[in-house]
């Protein structure tokens, strides 16, 4: 298949997926979820009050119209207003994106670099004691609940030892730095286990390839093979793995943000969940789905550009 036709087809596939996402969101939040007016007004609301609120919220409009509103919001990012704070949701998202990114972005960069470094190291010593210890340590790290990391981390490092701020946030550089250090540290610890395991498998998949044997046969040193040949080839799955995770950075770290009172998107989402604020939940769902779809397309296109074998299949 021609590379341009492939990319075009991949781009066009976004449309049915996006319509599908909106359909699922519509079914979940507009069709089968419990009547939001009942949640907002409480059990003792009169029928008239409920009808008025339904009209005010636009819930009495035709179903198809409500569905197309969701589809439209995926393009315009105009999600209407929050039911609880009455704020414009797009404004809330704009305000929350930066605090979220100050936590998730550095955490993501550190954990990725650290994990790739560790996985190259253990791949170099594969089968030896250090490899086994690291792999076991990763599995052990993965087996602890992320909530336990957050609670213990906050209690021990911030509350008991006073090394970090317990919670809070100050906008603007460099004022936010003391507040984000501990959250970043905790995210790095949570992600290092699964990441090292993944990158290690990726590197080891390459180590057993024929070209590595050839390189060895022509007398190259193990270090040179690993860092020059293997790393270059392993970069393809690594990039895929990295790019696909970017949308989750935007969504923020739900639990971390709520524990450390960081006014990011994760916190907004959590508040919306707690107060059944459907428009905000819907907006966050659509937003992150759109981000996910865009970044999957980017990975797929990158993949075809780097690895011609993909196009053939």
């Amino acid at each position, binding site marked *: 298949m021609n590379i341009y036709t492939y990319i075009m087809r991949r781009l066009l596939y976004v449309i*049915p*997926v996006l319509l*599908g*996402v909106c*359909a*699922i*969101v519509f079914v*979940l*939040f507009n069709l*089968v*979820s*419990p009547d939001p007016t009942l949640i907002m007004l409480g059990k003792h609301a009169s029928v008239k009050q409920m009808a008025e609120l339904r009209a005010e919220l636009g819930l009495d409009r035709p179903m198809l119209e409500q569905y197309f509103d969701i589809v439209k919001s995926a393009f315009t990012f105009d999600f209407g207003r929050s039911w609880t704070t009455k704020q414009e949701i797009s404004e809330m998202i704009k305000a929350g994106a930066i605090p979220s990114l100050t936590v998730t972005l550095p955490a993501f960069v550190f954990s990725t670099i650290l994990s790739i470094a560790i996985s190259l190291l253990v791949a170099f010593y594969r*089968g030896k004691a250090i490899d086994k210890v690291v792999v076991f340590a990763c*599995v*052990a790290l*993965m*087996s*602890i*609940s*992320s*909530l*336990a990391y957050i*609670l*213990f981390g*906050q*209690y021990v490092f911030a*509350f008991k030892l006073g090394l970090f701020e317990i919670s809070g946030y100050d906008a603007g550089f460099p004022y936010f730095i003391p507040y984000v250090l501990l959250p970043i540290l905790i995210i790095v610890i949570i992600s290092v286990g699964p990441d090292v395991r993944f990158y290690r*498998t990726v590197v*080891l*998949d390459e180590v*057993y390839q024929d070209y590595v044997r050839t390189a060895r046969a022509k007398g190259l040193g193990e270090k040179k093979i690993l860092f020059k040949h293997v790393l270059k080839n392993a970069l393809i799955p690594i990039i895929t793995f990295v790019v696909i995770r970017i949308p*989750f950075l935007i*969504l923020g770290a*739900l*639990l971390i943000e709520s524990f450390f009172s960081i006014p990011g998107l994760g916190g907004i989402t*959590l508040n919306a*969940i*707690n107060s*059944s604020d459907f428009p905000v*939940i819907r907006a*966050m*769902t659509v937003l*992150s*789905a759109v981000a*996910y*779809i865009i970044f*999957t397309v980017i990975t797929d296109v990158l993949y075809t550009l780097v690895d011609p074998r993909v196009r053939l299949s």
Partner: protein
Amino acid sequence: MEVVKEQKSKNLWQHAWGTLLSDKFAVTSMAIVTIYFLVAIFSSLGFIAADWTKEIGPSYAPPSADYIFGLDIFGRSVLAKTLKGTEVAMSVGLVTGIISMIIGVTLGGIAGYFGGKIDEVIVWFYTTFNSIPYIMLLVAITFILGKGILAVYLALGLTSWVNLCRLIRGEVIRHKDREYVQAAAAIGGGDFRKLFLHILPNVMHIVIINFSLQFQTAIKSEVILSYLGLGVQGQPSWGTMINDAKLELARGNWWQLAAATLAMFIVVLAFNTLGDALRDALDPKLKGK
């Protein structure tokens, strides 16, 4: 003339079982999982931790010889609550695993076997589904079903089948034109017979490995749902215990968090180790990696 005695060769499953038994990590993990299942069964039958609601001492008594894991705010034994919590954890893991197995295997099998339009629709469906963040789907489903353990089962089960579905689809595509499937067709086997009786047993190893990993993910997710206030109600679970600990920690009461975390850590670690061991035993391609 010598008569050669026919020696029965081991099949894949016997081989895998042998490999598993020779791996001491795998054996330990299986023992741990069995113990947890037994605790869960005995506690649901009322043999263990039936008196978890009873006040047995002062509020927030720290761990001591009398109270191994200390007491909670109402003077209830944290140990008994932890044991009782096993019930929720193991049932959530099991039911979730079964739901996602049924959906994943059926859809993946049908998509891979029939191909064409059916395949396109199923692939579109899981791509769409996968684009929505897991946590949002969980929240939406628990909103609809109300709170409680049934909602937890369904929410976790309905959101975790995509990976298995994708793997099964790929594997079935690879198998469907092989000789043994043609042979089954030649003796008059229909589509569903070929798919479910001939191909699926050959891709079963993927299902088993996935089930083991799915189990521990479900246990971990239950904790998150409980923290969001969408989890199990009126019954102790490790999630609700960790959630309670949020307020207790500021007063220095760490034992409830420690007990729940420890109980969870051991079983999740066992399932992770077991998953890896199963992969080594059932998927010879990956051996030694």
